[in-house]
């Protein structure tokens, strides 16, 4: 049995008070909190093993190198990456996607080509492709979102053409919670010979990811959304694609031989990791995936489904609330964006904060989706993770009712 009370004890921040109330952290789609095991892994590295990696003959450097590469192996296994050198460390999802936009797309996308994204993409999986199109003369095409908040795959074969070079698509929307089935996209892409990049920022923390089963060409993720520190993320790249790719950033660590005139590149994965890597955070990320594996991704997913179900049901008690996102729980993650009639999301956020409840308000880095598809200036968003409880969902609902009464009562008084 999944025991959330025990899980919570692993997260020191959860015992914090906010405005005199226990913290109810429901901003997990923005970033996750960290278990003691992750904090300890980081501290242990700096108190016992820290050194710059590679090429060092001294003990600390050997230990640091081994720990860094062991971390890569463990994280690679977590995503079923076939070989560790196909997992490149980056700062976050955004850098991972930019790496592909600069190192791969700039060499493979030409004027007249097409890049396909969906209407639910995070800015980090939209703006880099706008740039590639601007620079190369390629065209950006959109897979539409349907009124039921799932993606419209009905005319995939018209959207993807022989000119399509890349489809860049999220596996889970950070606004709608929508889980995007990657397979239809993969199939359509393979038919036209396009590559597929999967933005796993929201899927990696919350469900089992198997990059080989998915068969995608690129998979990007952020550590900080999956219990690891900020400052570390990764990019999986399919073997043949990776081997043909030019470097991204240039400098130390990523070269083989350098003369004053030119340089040749180090083996994979180092070719793509210029400069001193973030060893400590990579090790902490491996502690995070170890923690997640121990709990079990399927168990975590089930826990979040239950919370989401409960939250959606209870939100129906407040008639002024409109929620966005698929109603079918098997098609959505633990993210609920909502809108309350007559109360601006910003005001909801402030009232909830006074109750110790942290939610996010705004456009969630998906401005075109929020403004021109949901047609609201902003939404409020509660997002759950493995340490959240049904009691916290209830606290959210009570606080929302209070908010409604607070703004609504005044109405009543006037009337």
């Amino acid at each position, binding site marked *: 049995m999944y025991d959330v009370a025990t899980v919570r004890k692993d997260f020191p921040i959860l015992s914090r008070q906010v405005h*005199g109330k226990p913290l109810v952290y429901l901003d997990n789609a923005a970033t996750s909190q960290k278990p003691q095991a992750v904090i300890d892994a980081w501290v242990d590295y700096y108190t016992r093993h820290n050194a710059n990696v590679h090429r060092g003959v001294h003990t600390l450097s050997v230990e640091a190198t081994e720990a860094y590469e062991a971390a890569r192996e463990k994280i690679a296994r977590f995503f079923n990456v076939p070989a560790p050198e196909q997992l490149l460390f980056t700062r976050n999802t955004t850098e991972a996607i930019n790496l592909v936009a600069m190192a791969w797309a700039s060499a493979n996308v030409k004027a007249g080509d097409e890049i396909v994204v969906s209407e639910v993409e995070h800015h980090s999986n939209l703006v880099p492709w706008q740039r590639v199109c601007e620079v190369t003369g390629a065209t950006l095409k959109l897979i539409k979102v349907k009124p039921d908040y799932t993606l419209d795959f009905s005319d995939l074969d018209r959207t993807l053409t022989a000119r399509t070079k890349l489809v860049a698509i999220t596996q889970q929307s950070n606004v709608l919670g929508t889980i995007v089935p990657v397979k239809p996209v993969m199939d359509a892409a393979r038919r036209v010979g396009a590559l597929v990049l999967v933005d796993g920022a929201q899927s990696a923390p919350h469900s089992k990811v198997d990059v080989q089963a998915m068969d995608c060409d690129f998979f990007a993720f952020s550590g900080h959304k999956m219990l690891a520190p900020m400052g570390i993320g990764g990019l999986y790249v399919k073997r043949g694609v990776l081997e043909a790719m030019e470097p991204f950033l240039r400098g130390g660590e990523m070269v083989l031989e350098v003369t004053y005139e030119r340089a040749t590149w180090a083996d994979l994965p180092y070719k793509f990791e210029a400069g001193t890597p973030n060893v400590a955070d990579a090790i902490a990320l491996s502690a995070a995936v170890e923690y997640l594996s121990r709990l079990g991704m399927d168990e975590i997913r089930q826990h979040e489904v239950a919370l989401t179900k409960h939250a959606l049901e209870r939100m129906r008690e407040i008639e002024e609330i409109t929620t966005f996102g698929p109603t079918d729980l098997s098609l959505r993650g633990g993210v609920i964006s909502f809108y309350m009639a007559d109360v601006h999301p*910003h*005001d909801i956020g402030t009232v909830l904060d006074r109750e110790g409840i942290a939610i996010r308000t705004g456009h969630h880095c998906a401005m075109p989706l929020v403004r021109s598809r949901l047609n609201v*200036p902003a939404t409020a968003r509660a997002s759950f993770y493995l340490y959240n409880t049904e009691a916290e969902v209830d606290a959210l609902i009570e606080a929302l009712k209070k908010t409604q009464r607070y703004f609504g009562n005044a109405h009543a008084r006037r009337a």
Partner: protein
Amino acid sequence: MLMPDGLDDLYQEIILDHYRHPRNKGLLADADLQAEGYNPFCGDQVRLTMDLDESGHVHKVGFDGQGCSISQASASILTKLVKGRSVDEVQGLVATVRRIMQGADMTDEQKDELGELEALEGVKKFPIRVKCALLPWTTLQDAVSEYRKTHAQ
């Protein structure tokens, strides 16, 4: 009425009242001064229009917008306060409000003169919301600057 702790400072009755009953709502056509302000982070939006009389004082004002209670109430209060002021005086008013919202206490004189603005002082305890309160005022500044540019000599 239930009021979550400390929120009364932010959501004073005057603010909620302006939010729900905005004064001078609706834009003027062909206004002498106008500007639009937008805060993409919260989606707050304010449009301001003003007409001057022959002596160069604001005699008509209208706003429009969308956003949180603080930004919209602040805009509504603004429209009451600019009326009857010259362009120079409006500019002085913006500077005063900015100083107040960024931390200065209101003098008794200012409280007398600026009346309902006092209700916005509570926002200072919510630093993250200060930019909501200021949005209409920075928009007003833009309107003045634009007017000055086009009426340079």
